[in-house]
């Protein structure tokens, strides 16, 4: 991530925190993502090869960056090409054919960007830590 992006990100983050705080006061919950009437239709937005993020959201550090897929347990053609971490732990995720994203935490609901996916997972976790996925 370039310094420029970082500075922009920090500003954005402060604004978002303010907005999120306001929302929390107003409704008692923070709604993130673009859930449609069907329970999760999101419009795809290409994160782009350079769209990394590293921010603190509700007290959790969330990071996203393009990856070559080497860390994926079932690699074979998954081609996610992206990696998201919450406080350093990998959030298993994948990309849908229409360009939207899902994670193991929100598996049946699509999100437009990895960042929205990460924030939705933070909301769901309520402070809990991700555990490595057991596959056998």
């Amino acid at each position, binding site marked *: 991530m370039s310094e420029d992006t970082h500075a922009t990100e920090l500003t954005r983050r402060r604004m978002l925190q303010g907005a999120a705080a306001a929302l929390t006061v107003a409704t008692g919950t923070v709604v993130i993502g673009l*859930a449609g*009437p*069907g*329970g*999760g*239709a999101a419009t795809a937005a290409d994160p782009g090869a350079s769209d990394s993020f590293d921010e603190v959201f509700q007290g959790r550090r969330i990071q996203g960056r393009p990856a070559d897929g080497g860390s994926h*347990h*079932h690699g*074979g*053609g*998954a*081609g996610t090409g992206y990696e998201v971490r919450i406080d350093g732990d990998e959030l*298993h995720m*994948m*990309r*849908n*054919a*229409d360009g939207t994203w899902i994670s*193991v*935490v*929100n*598996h*049946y*609901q*699509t999100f437009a960007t990895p960042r929205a996916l990460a924030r939705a997972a933070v909301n*769901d*976790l*309520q402070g*809990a*830590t*991700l*555990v490595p*996925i*057991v*596959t*056998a």
Partner: protein
Amino acid sequence: MGVRKNQANLTAQEKRAFVNAVLALKANGGYDPFVTTHNQFIVSDVDNGERTGHRSPSFLPWHRQYLLEFERALQAVDPSVNLPYWDWTADRTATAGIWGADFMGGNGRSSDGQVTTGPFAFSGGNWRLNVNTDSRTYLRRQLGTGVAQLPSRADTESVLAITTYDAAPWNSSSAGFRNNLEGWRGVNLHNRVHVWVGGQMATGMSPNDPVFWLHHCFVDKLWSEWQKRNPGKTYLPTAGTPDVVDLNERMKPWNTVTPADLLDHSGTYTYDTGF
């Protein structure tokens, strides 16, 4: 041969027998491997590679076989038990009978989503989650939070009216009955119900919530209904399709049954009514 009934019509004794068989399977270690298997497929089924359990034509036969395996495991405990189904077009509120303390237990509490009533409440000591996305070991639900409404009867009828089983590219972007039922496209039936329940039901480890089986039993019933209404139509694709299970190909992880083997379930179980 068993008859799978609407959970709303179960007697108190039938409810008790089902719950007790599920708890016994959990206690003898037979339950958690089902959760692991499900998540294995959830994380490995991908739109541009091999896909078997989800986002592919075999979504329906794979879950049919998966439910049969689970039902047999329950019957090994109590031969009188059959899977019940949850008609979410009819029982569509957070206070419906399915969420009673004598059956699935209720909504999660507002502070942490923890289910505190019924046989699967953590405090009862019989339902600790061992295969999970995160460090919480208690069952959670947030009924009607992730999405406000369960699919309606009209939504469901509109999907049953789609006369082609599935279509290329045989994934989450396909047209056809299977993908509209699964919910990646269109009015969204199956996926939406997972989101409506919330908690573990929204995750890849969704079978941690026993309501998973009742939800998927209804999805299976809808497939059965579609088959009845479309006698000339069958499972697609028929042969030679990369990365997906063709009509006569064996499905992982069992490697014993094909979609063709599962099309007619009438020799194994039936449903109490049509849709």
